[in-house]
């Protein structure tokens, strides 16, 4: 198949993922929970096994072959991550545990030392709790003000509201999901950066969803902080990324203290290593970095543009198939959206529906997807069932979901 001139064969791609050939309760697995965590291609699994079988030791300062090889592999993962995001400098790439930890790192280190009381942090109504709670903690600790930019009924960031809330120049940081994990909305990132910078604010994007589906060009975007996580990008759990402008990292004190992040330690005081080591205390996720590198190589070889084109087609198909099912309400109809579909029904509680879909082999998430304020905003009390796509999702799977949603209504009637 060819989309926009870029070839993408979803059937072939699916064969790269061992887990997808599995039967669940005797039915073909229809995995529609990639937004929570994506499945892993063989190349990622193999790279991690090979690292442990052939090239494993602790990194940095082990003056022997295996440690040097592991260090090289770890730093190569950093360089690959920088290239993946088109970041200006690999020293601006900090490995963390996940996106949540990366945001907490910024809130803790930059937020507590660079932001001043009287300044504000602004986030949106469509944030994941990971981009809300760290700012609540910062507010309690430091007395900064929190502002929340509204989301329109169609699920877009309300840019007029953003403009108004930036107007007094007190906002020090705009922290926004690049793509919503519930509405699928892709935020107009370039525009947000321009507006924020014009108002004197720095910008952090939670790219946990977006980095998986779109090419991110940090040099073009000019974001101050960008975070994403390995396990949603077909890589392993246990590794996330903070990409930041070096000038910010240099001004920030360490997040955690320990080995590997210092240059001089006496019993009385320590001197910090330069970034990114300053923010990577203790033994880092070595095998996970190798896995992330393999995942980045995998999606890069497929082509982020090809992946995006495939998913765009899939989203268009899903918008046709999932929007006219009786009793099903889709949250969010943003113009620019990715493959995340949260649905509330008038016939079943989200958990009952998810149990039903599971029996049909369909894996979806039920609840509020760590975005309780957003569900309140859209008047959904009990939660939604969320289907989220990966690069291996097919139109036939979307059709099967639509059919199951229709039959579920009969079941509960």
């Amino acid at each position, binding site marked *: 198949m060819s989309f926009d001139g870029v070839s993408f064969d979803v059937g072939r791609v699916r064969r790269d993922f061992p887990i997808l050939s599995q039967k669940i309760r005797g039915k073909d697995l229809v995995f529609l929970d990639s937004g929570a965590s994506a499945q892993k291609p063989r190349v990622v699994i193999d790279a991690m096994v090979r690292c442990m079988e052939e090239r494993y030791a602790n990194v940095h300062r082990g003056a022997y072959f295996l440690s040097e090889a592991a260090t090289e592999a770890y730093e190569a993962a950093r360089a690959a991550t920088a290239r993946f995001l088109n970041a200006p400098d690999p020293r601006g790439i900090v490995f963390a545990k996940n996106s949540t930890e990366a945001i907490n790192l910024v809130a803790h280190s930059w937020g507590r030392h660079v932001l001043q009381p009287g300044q504000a942090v602004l986030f949106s109504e469509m944030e994941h709790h990971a981009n809300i709670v760290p700012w609540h903690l910062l507010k309690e600790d430091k007395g900064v003000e929190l502002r929340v930019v509204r989301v329109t009924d169609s699920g877009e960031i309300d840019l007029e509201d953003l403009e108004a809330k930036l107007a007094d120049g007190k906002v020090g940081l705009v922290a926004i999901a690049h793509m919503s994990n519930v509405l699928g909305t892709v935020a107009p990132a370039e525009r947000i950066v321009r507006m924020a910078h014009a108002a004197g604010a720095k910008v952090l994007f939670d790219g946990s969803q977006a980095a998986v589906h779109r090419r991110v060009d940090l040099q073009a975007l000019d974001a101050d902080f960008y975070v994403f996580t390995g396990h949603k990008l077909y890589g392993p759990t246990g590794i996330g990324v903070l990409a930041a402008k070096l000038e910010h990292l240099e001004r920030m004190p360490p997040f955690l203290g320990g080995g590997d992040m210092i240059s001089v330690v006496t019993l009385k005081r320590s001197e910090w290593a330069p970034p990114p080591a300053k923010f990577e205390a203790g033994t880092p996720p070595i095998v996970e970095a190798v896995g992330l590198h393999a995942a980045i190589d995998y999606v890069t070889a497929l082509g982020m543009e090809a992946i995006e084109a495939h998913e765009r087609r899939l989203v268009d198909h899903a918008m046709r198939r999932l929007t006219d099912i009786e009793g099903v309400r889709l949250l969010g109809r943003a113009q620019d959206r990715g493959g995340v579909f949260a649905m509330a029904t008038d016939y079943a509680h989200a*958990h009952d529906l998810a*149990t039903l879909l599971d*029996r049909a082999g369909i894996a979806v998430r*039920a609840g509020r997807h760590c975005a*309780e304020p957003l569900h309140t905003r859209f008047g959904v009390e009990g*939660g939604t069932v969320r289907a989220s796509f990966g690069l291996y999702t097919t139109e036939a799977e979307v059709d099967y979901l639509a059919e199951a949603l229709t039959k579920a209504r009969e079941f509960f009637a």
Partner: protein
Amino acid sequence: MFDDLRDLYQEVILDHGRKPRNFRRLEDADRSARGDNPMCGDRLELFLKLGPDGRIADAAFQGRGCAISTASASLLTETVKGKTAEEAHALSDSFRELAMTGTCPHCQAALEEEMERLQPLSGVHEFPSRVKCATLAWHTLNAALDGAKEASSE
């Protein structure tokens, strides 16, 4: 597509889920407690009215939840009426064993009739992620009997 789910969603459960019995506040309740399942956001409040003999004279609940948690709460209010606190605790223990294992070999013969009524919920034991839906109301019952205000199925 979903035929084998009739074991879990038996007609009794769908019926009680759609039209829960005793779904009201008891303004003159002697005991009440809130139950919360933070995982899924299910929430209920259980009210008990005790008679002069110490037995549960009336039971009611309010809240929101899935079909299984609503049906379980509804059946609870029907089966605990007339029970002493001790009997209600015993019923609660038996029910939780039923929900977790599908059977209750050690259940008291005295509760046989009540357990029979609760039997349709036994199918939940095959769905580990849903057992808590069925037991939420019963945790809340224990909290109410013990004079606690909050119960969580976590």
